[in-house]
């Protein structure tokens, strides 16, 4: 009898908790759905817009469902950057995407390579001025490109690196974020590995290649995703350093397609190009997602 009572009570309690939980879960989902809507709506409008002809959007309509011009728009954007050559400068999307891809990959790879090596030096070697080096690297964190943009531009002009991929990429590579992350990770590598490697006869570079790099793979992948997107989205620096059309990146290129003098904006082409510009970062995220999550959450012992 007594037992039956307690079970009944327990049940009631459990049900109440469940109800409360399901209510809060419902609320959470509603908030999430709202968030998704807010984020997704502009993208939806862009995708839909890229499937209409120029005049539909030009009239001020904002269609919410697909039109029939998708193939024509994308082909036009890809091959020639639209019909009105005056407005876009006639830059085909493939060229801008290629430039962006080059820039983003070079920035990501360059940053990772430099910061791996500098973090390795700072963590595993004791040399005079080690901490000074570390702090110098650290300080660059407080000086992103935007802050030092004028002197950097001056340096690039003096080196005659304007309108080159080098000039575009190198100043963006030099920063400390990734160095700091790798330093933190390297500090978790037990000293015993270093010592075991010393006894095994592995020199510093060999230890780096055979032990440190393989242990850092997930971190490198995670950073690659972040840095690729960082590079892809660069706007101000490419706008300044590149005036040559052949080196225009897609983010800069799209803004140049808008509001250019007296000609009509070809919104359908602009939107198609925007959609194309979205794809590589999305692809990188999807492709690297597994590694990415692993790199952020898992610390292998």
């Amino acid at each position: 009898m007594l037992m039956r009572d307690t079970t009944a009570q327990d049940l009631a309690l459990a049900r109440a908790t469940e109800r409360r939980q399901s209510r809060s879960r419902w609320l959470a989902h509603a908030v999430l759905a709202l968030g998704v809507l807010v984020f997704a709506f502009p993208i939806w409008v862009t995708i839909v817009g890229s499937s209409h002809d120029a005049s539909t959007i030009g009239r001020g309509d904002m269609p919410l469902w697909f039109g029939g011009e998708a193939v024509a728009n994308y082909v036009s954007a890809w091959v020639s950057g639209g019909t009105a050559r005056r407005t876009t400068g006639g830059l085909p999307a493939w060229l801008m995407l290629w430039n962006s891809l080059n820039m983003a990959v070079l920035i990501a790879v360059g940053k990772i390579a430099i910061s791996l090596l500098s973090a390795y030096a700072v963590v595993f070697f004791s040399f005079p001025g080690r901490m000074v080096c570390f702090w110098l690297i650290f300080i660059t964190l407080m000086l992103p490109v935007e802050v030092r943009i004028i002197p950097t531009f001056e340096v690039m002009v003096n080196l005659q690196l304007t309108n080159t991929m080098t000039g575009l990429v190198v100043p963006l590579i030099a920063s400390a974020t990734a160095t700091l992350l790798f330093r933190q990770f390297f500090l978790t590598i037990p000293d015993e590995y270093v010592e075991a490697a010393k006894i095994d006869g592995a020199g510093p570079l060999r230890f780096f290649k055979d032990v440190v790099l393989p242990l850092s793979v997930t971190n490198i992948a995670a950073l690659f995703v972040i840095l690729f997107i960082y590079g892809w989205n660069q706007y101000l620096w490419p706008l300044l350093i590149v005036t040559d059309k052949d080196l225009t990146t897609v983010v800069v290129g799209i803004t140049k397609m808008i509001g250019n003098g007296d000609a009509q904006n070809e919104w359908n082409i602009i939107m198609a190009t925007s959609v194309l510009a979205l794809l590589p970062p999305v692809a990188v995220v999807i492709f690297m997602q597994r590694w990415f999550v692993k790199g952020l959450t898992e610390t292998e012992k």
Partner: protein
Amino acid sequence: MATLTLSGIRKSFGATQVLHGIDLDVADGEMIVVVGASGCGKSTLLRIVAGLETPTAGSVLIDGRDVTRLEPADRDIAMVFQNYALYPHMSVFDNMAYGLRIRGMPTAEIRKRVADAAEMLEIAQLLDRKPRQLSGGQRQRVAMGRAVVREPKLFLFDEPLSNLDAKLRVQMRAEIRRLQKRLGVTSLFVTHDQVEAMTLGDRLVVMHQGRAAQVAAPMEVWGTPADTYVAGFIGSPAMNFLSAALSDGGRAASLKAGPTLPFADGPRAAADGTPLTIGIRPEHVEHRPEAADAIPLSVDLVEPLGSETVIHGHLPGGESLVARLPLAAGAIGDVLPVGLPPAEWHVFGTEGSRLPARQGVAAAASR
């Protein structure tokens, strides 16, 4: 196979001196166990031999060659770490082969060596696994295997068993001993566990605060400890220490606990009244119900262990005494009559170092 000679090894980290001049001669094929409390500098000593630390002063000779300034890789040694330090991303095979590959050994030879070592250590079926897929005991074996394949002049072990559970520890202890004897490789084994030390070593180095308090065979360390530190460190339960004063012209000790008893091995060369410490192991304390000269031991705690009973109590004068008695004798609050046979005494002088009987006089007394 090789000899190892350490002479005058000192080491300071900044202002703190950790090693105060260690001298040691290790014979070919010998297993030396360095034992001492945590923080006494055992690992530092081992790492100096390995070349992972540079001594502040002194030199390390392997096979007569001065290696003090050489890199670890050039010393022809192998080391087993406490947490094994297996490279987590490499298979067992690769872990064992890594050092050999770096030396540029031909692949066939590497395969053969790893296979032989794996068979000897019974890890042949684990060669493809990653370290994280192994149990503690298996990792331990792989770490051993990595040392064995090198066929080094010297094995260095830094508390390799302390991460294992008690049963496995005993098993691996025996196995390390067997392996070391079989391969005949000169070895230095660091541990804080006195049982490990006693069972493994041909000789022990008992370290205390950066000094070698005693270097001797295990039974000698147990039988004639050089000072009160060694006496108290080796043996379980630990040796009892009773204060006393020299009396009767150096022929007897008058215990603070009461009686004055003559030394069994002859007189000491010191003035009467010199303070002494008399050490006696718990297993040598006797239960003497009938004896008139027995000392009353007030029982504070009784630990029955089956075959014997460990009694914790105190003597008149307040000094505590632990006795290992063969039978269940006494209960808390009882007063047991015990004897402290002088034949089993360890006599220590004021500085805590062993005060031996005067030479010649003992012989004269026994004549």
